[in-house]
Each structure stands twice: as structure tokens, then as C-alpha cells.
């Protein structure tokens, strides 16, 4: 068995302020196997973004150990093995869609695209934005901006893709399409994906493992392997198996919160 792509052991994150201490994550342990697709599901404020930031070396955990792709998060980040899609698209307003996707080539030392990996233009086409290369972010809809951000994160073929509610602000139709698209990208690239979402359906549809977090403080409420076929048409969401799994997830969520 190969080493996990992401391994968190007893990770806690506390945010200190003069008024109080917020425990965003409390003793969180889980792992994602290489090439796996794990959804992080939980109510607002339970620490999903925080967990993603710990994995991406954007914040250091107060306690616990994190291993990413066999090394420390810092080494993984410096090796340019990570792609991050932020909760708001975080595009640079003075750059066109294409220039935004090209940004990773201009900073951080790596300037040449690895052989055989998709060009910025191809990636824009992949996310359905062919023809929009020269538009500025303020000329794009929220969903289109989010797709530009995804194309940017895919540039260079990252081995681990961290996505923070990338489809949270989208309408259901676009979201369904992008969910299918993401499944396809995942099978094609073989990247490991850690995907944050509020939506039970999205979490179950996309992933082969769902990590349910409960809020205040953020703890692991459940980890479950999703036993669904690899080929997943959208219609799978109407099958009894899917509905049963989704109901179970909702049960885990309910236990963790006071709903």
C-alpha cells in the first residue's frame, strides 16, 4: 500500500484573539489515498476552509502532524504540487481570463509548463470558456469567474487539488455540469482531490470518500467510503443506493449540530 496523499493526525487549529480563543479544528485525523477524491462536508463555520488551508501550508496547525504527498505541506507547496481553488474566485481584476490562468507560470520560479500538460488556452476550453480568453473578470459572471479559477488551479497538472466550495455560488444546472466535468477531469488527470462543500448531494456524487465535520469545535463526525460505481451519470442521484448514502450523511450532519 502506498503512502496516503494527505494524512492528518490529531490536527487542532486555534485562532487567538484578545477577546477569545476559537477552536476551529479539534483533534482531526483522516487520510486521503493517492488519486482519491474526498469531500469535506459540514455546516458553515465548522473549519472546512481552515482544514484546507492547513493542508496547503497557508496556516500552521496548533497541534498535530500533517503529511502531504509524502512530505511536509511546505515542501509540497514549494514543489508546486498543489492547486488551490478559493471560495471566492480570487482572480486579479487587471488580468484577462487567459492572463489569470497564466499567472502560475510567471511567479514562484517554475516558468515552463511541464511537457504534455494542458496549455492555459486548453484549460479554459476544458472549463467551457473557449472564446472568453480576453474578457476581464468584471465582464464575466460569477460562475465563469469560478471556472477561470479552476482552470488556473489545474495549470501544470497539480498532484493534489484543493477546492474550497468552488461551485457554492452557482446555479444548479451549471453546478451539475461542472460536477460531471470535475469527475471527468479527476479520472483523466489522476490527481488527488480534496473538495469542500455544503451540499450533501454534491459531496456524495463527486467523492469516493466523504469526511463529515461537526461544528463548534470542528471535529470529525464521520468518515465514509462511498460505494458507488466509478462511472457516475447525474441520474445516479435518483438510485436507491445514492439516496440511502445521502440520507446517512445528513444523519451525521444532524448529530453534530443542534438542528
Amino acid at each position: 500500500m502506498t503512502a496516503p496523499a494527505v494524512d492528518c493526525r490529531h490536527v487542532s487549529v486555534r485562532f487567538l484573539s484578545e477577546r477569545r480563543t476559537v477552536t476551529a479544528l479539534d483533534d482531526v485525523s483522516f487520510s486521503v489515498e493517492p488519486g482519491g477524491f474526498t469531500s469535506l462536508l459540514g455546516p458553515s463555520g465548522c473549519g472546512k476552509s481552515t482544514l484546507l488551508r492547513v493542508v496547503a501550508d497557508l496556516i500552521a496547525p496548533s497541534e498535530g502532524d500533517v503529511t502531504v504527498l509524502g512530505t511536509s505541506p511546505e515542501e509540497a507547496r514549494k514543489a508546486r504540487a498543489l492547486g488551490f481553488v478559493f471560495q471566492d474566485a480570487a482572480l486579479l481584476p487587471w488580468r484577462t481570463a487567459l492572463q489569470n490562468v497564466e499567472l502560475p507560470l510567471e511567479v514562484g520560479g517554475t516558468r515552463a509548463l511541464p511537457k504534455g500538460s494542458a496549455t492555459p488556452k486548453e484549460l479554459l476550453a476544458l472549463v467551457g470558456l473557449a472564446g472568453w480568453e480576453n474578457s476581464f473578470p468584471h465582464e464575466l459572471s460569477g460562475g465563469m469567474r469560478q471556472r477561470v479559477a479552476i482552470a488556473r488551479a489545474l495549470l501544470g497538472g497539480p498532484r493534489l487539488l484543493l477546492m474550497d466550495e468552488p461551485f457554492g455560488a452557482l446555479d444548479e444546472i451549471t453546478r451539475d455540469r461542472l460536477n460531471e466535468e470535475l469527475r471527468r477531469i479527476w479520472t483523466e488527470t489522476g490527481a488527488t482531490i480534496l473538495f469542500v462543500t455544503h451540499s450533501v448531494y454534491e459531496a456524495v456524487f463527486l467523492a469516493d470518500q466523504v469526511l463529515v465535520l461537526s461544528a463548534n469545535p470542528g471535529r470529525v463526525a464521520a468518515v465514509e467510503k462511498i460505494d458507488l460505481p466509478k462511472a457516475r451519470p447525474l441520474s445516479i442521484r435518483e438510485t436507491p443506493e445514492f439516496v440511502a448514502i445521502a440520507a446517512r450523511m445528513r444523519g451525521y450532519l444532524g448529530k453534530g449540530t443542534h438542528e
Partner: protein
Amino acid sequence: MSEMAMSPSREAAIRAERDAFLARQKSARLKRRLLPLAGVIGLIGLWALLVYVLKVPPFVAPSPQLVAVTLVTKFDVLMTNLFPTAVEAIAGFLLGNFAAILIATVFVHKKSLEQAFFPVVVLINTIPVVAKAPILVLLLGNGMEPKIAIAALICFFPTLVNMVRGLESVNPQALELMRVLSASKTETFFKLRLLNALPYLFSALKIAASTAVIGAIVGEWIGSTTGIGALIIQSTYNFDSAMLYATVIVGSAFSVLFFLAITLAERLVVRWQPASGH
């Protein structure tokens, strides 16, 4: 398919709607241009009327006609005096803003320096220009230097404040993105912070364009023999109100041109829509 095709009458109606819209736009644009002009002409008319009716003597206030005549006959004198003022204002503008941008950059990278020196800068800024001017004249002599220094000082503060704000008010997720990409501090500065600051910088530069001219003029008030400021003082002492007004008009015309040049530069440089309302 038949529902898709538009009936000719409907098409015509839509075209008529568009034509009407364009006509409305055109008249609105014309109005926007003409109304300010009408305001200026009206004001000059009122001025002429008041001078005529109240029989104001020319050493108190000139009539607009007299000012116009002076503008034409004394054009040479006015221009030879505008030249040094313009040089001082532009040099001060460049110097003050360059210093402000540089110091803002240092402040953003060294927080402790900002904490140490920002209060000092605020303190210096509270001294009025008319008080700073004599000090600088004593320090720098009677040439162009003290005027340039005053113009520079007057530009410095607004640009510094805006520039620091522009460099710091970067989308935090964009900063995190730079870190995920392992961008260096220099790269983050040039690819993110500096561009983010440009709209802020230009708001400050537009203010600075007119204040730099004010700074140069105030500097010339103290023991200067040439320049718009000197001319203002001379014509006041000579009770030459027509010359005084003509000088003021030339000075403001230069200010306006300077401002328009910066506005044009802004349009060329800042082509995107700033992220947040600012």
C-alpha cells in the same frame, strides 16, 4: 420556428425604440457639455453687469472685458512667468509622488518603520503650506529649489496615505494564492500589490496635480521675482486688478490642464474595474 421569427412591425418597433434611446443619449451628452459652459458664461455676464452697474473702480475689480484685453496684450509676460511655475509644479509633483510611492513601499514591507515614522509624517502635514514656505526658503535659498520642495511636500502626503492603503488592501485570498504558488515578495509586490494600488494612486495624483501648482505659487510669494506667484504679488501691490485676474486665470488654466493630463493617463493605465467600491 414561426414563433422565433419576428413580425416586421415588431422589428420596426424595436428599432424605433433603439433610435429614440440613441437620440436621448445624444441630447443628454450635449446637455452635459453645454450646461457647464452656460454656467460660466452666465457668471461672466453677471460679473460684467455688477462691475458696470456698481461702477467698481478698476483698482478694486476689473471688468471681464479688461481682463480679456490684458490676457491678450500681456500674453508674453504671462507666459514667461508661467514657465518657471510650471517647471516647479511638475518637478515638485514628480519628486513628491516618487518619494511617497517609495516610502509607501518601504512602509508596507517594514511595518515597524511605518509605526515609527507615520506619526511624524502626519505631524509635518499638519503645518500649513504658508508656514512651511518661509522655512524652506531660508533653508534652500531663493531659486527654484524651495518652490519645488514646497510643491513636493504638498503632493507627498495624500499620495503616501493612498498608496499605503492601495498596497495593503489586497484581496486576502489573492495573497494566499501567491503563497500557494510560492511567489517571492518581489513578485507579490509587482504582480499583485502595485497593480492593486494603481487606482488608489491615481486618485491621489489627481489631487496632487492641482495642489502642486498651489505649492509652487505659494512658494513664489516669498521674495520671488518671476513666476505666477510673484506676478500675483506684484499686480496686487500695483493695484493692477486686471493683471491680477489674468494671472490667476493663467495659473488655474495650467492646473486644469495638468489635472486633465493625469486623468488621461489614468484612463490609459487603469483599464479594469477596481474590485471594491473605493
